[in-house]
């Protein structure tokens, strides 16, 4: 089973891009599974189900979404494998820009959009900087030159990645992206694998539900601004 992690800022077009890739993979008769991670609510699982792919939804609720991801993804891979999927795609949003679901030796995709601003590539951490494939979306909304400037900004923070433009609405570029999905590594389990980058942590009183503001309520791993 080929497994890929797809991540990206909220509303960058992850689901649309994955749906277009699924369409292209289905013409090649591949059985596909998708795991959709979100925080509070998602209806994207229905969009996937409509395409006739196997889908699992995971909502992290009150937990840190990426910690939730990493503590569930191994079981998801086993699930995909047991269901004879040829492909398993995990979709998760990088909400704080410091999180990243990318795993060593597993093809990592980051979706980012042209409308997010020229400084955004610099602001996103390992989710973008350690991805193997960077998909830039919403290119139809801006001019060629702006697309190029944005792509060069992405290239600056992740020069080793393959950078592709995909239109999540028309599917332009999805066929080409699919040919890269076909080269993803083939695995049976995630046992023994490691994250590409450690996840951010806090372990302070607020992690345990504290709501009161004030010095006396702060315990644990606290860091102070230089003011």
């Amino acid at each position, binding site marked *: 089973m080929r497994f890929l992690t797809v991540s990206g800022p909220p509303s960058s077009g992850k689901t649309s891009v994955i749906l277009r890739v699924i369409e292209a993979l289905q013409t090649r008769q591949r059985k596909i599974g998708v795991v959709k991670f979100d925080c509070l609510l998602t209806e994207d699982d229905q969009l996937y189900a409509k395409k006739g792919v196997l889908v699992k939804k995971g909502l992290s609720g009150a937990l840190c979404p990426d910690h939730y991801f990493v503590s569930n993804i191994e079981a998801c891979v086993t699930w995909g494998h047991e269901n004879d999927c040829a492909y398993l795609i995990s979709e998760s949003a990088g909400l704080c820009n*410091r999180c*990243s679901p990318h795993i060593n030796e597993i093809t990592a995709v980051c979706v980012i959009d*042209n*409308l997010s*601003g*020229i400084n955004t*590539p*610099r602001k996103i*951490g*390992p989710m973008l*900087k*350690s991805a193997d494939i960077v998909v830039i979306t919403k*290119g*139809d*909304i*801006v*001019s*060629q*030159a*702006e697309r*190029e*400037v944005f*792509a*060069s*900004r992405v*290239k*600056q*923070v*992740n*020069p*080793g990645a*393959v*950078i*592709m433009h995909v239109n999540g609405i*028309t599917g*332009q*570029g999805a*066929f*080409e992206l699919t*040919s890269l999905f076909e080269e993803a590594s083939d695995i049976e389990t995630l046992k023994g694998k490691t994250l590409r*980058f*450690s996840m951010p942590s806090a372990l302070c009183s607020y992690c345990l539900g504290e709501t009161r503001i004030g010095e006396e309520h702060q315990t644990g791993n606290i860091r102070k601004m230089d003011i």
Partner: protein
Amino acid sequence: MSYYDLLPRPLSELLAEHPYIEDFLSSFGLEVEPGQESLQDYLVNLNPDLLEDLGIGAEQLQQSLHDFINGMLALDDPLDQVNSLTLIGGFNKSGTAENLELTLKPGEVICIVGPTGSGKSRLLADIEWVAQGDTPTGRKILINGEVPDSKWRFSTEHKLVAQLSQNMNFVMDLSAEEFVRMHAESRLVTEPEKKVEMILKQANELAGETFLPDTPITSLSGGQSRALMIADMACLSKSPIVLIDEIENAGIDRKKALDLLMREEKIVLMATHDPILALMGDKRLVIKNGGIARIIEASAAERKNLIALEELDNKLLALRNRIRSGETLESI
């Protein structure tokens, strides 16, 4: 020269010769001083806690810098000359063979015509992807008569194709001058200031209404945006092939625009339904049902009609300008 040649050299020299290194480091949130320290020592001495806060590992930072510097140095490599592009036909949506082999040379303009949804964009995409029978149409593209290196597909430094799409919107919060400079810098052109000046001048010659260097790009009119993008493409792009998805006729001198692109000795493919642009082309590919149904060579009679069409167009343009300047059109 490669990354490894730069590693032992002092930062003071490197930052002066390759200013993009500082830009690279600052994009990761790192500061660098142009001192006697070598690049290697700088990288080795970075505080691991700082790197963790910035969300990057030391090894990965070095790998990225390696890839980035080598990519930048590759920009100086001479471009592979493209003397011809050959399109070998595939199949239309019903599976009927296109049965054609078409060779295009620099300076030629090929128009692509056909209704919406007929497959014009797929043809442009096949060329951009340098298809090798691996796209839904089964078409193949040869460069200089040979199967090209697959590097053309993913290289951002040496792109085979520059595409001018229909949409000319801008969302970045920059002035025309700042934007063109940023674009020129991303291409590492020599003397970017001169290029910027040239592009703004050319754009103003193409646009019906002139704009200033400090005009925000988001407030340019449709015609001004198109003019800026065409001038930008003609002056900055090193790509030997240009794909154009229709030049809308409002607010821009289309003939001058096309002349500008042709002067740069590029192979121009243009999806258009504009009679003037279509007749200016050497050939027209008629797309139907996903395939190239017919190739029309511009005839002598058509060329003659082009002159009449241009007169008609100029007349309309003059009327447009009269409306713009507040005149009435009671006599035309």
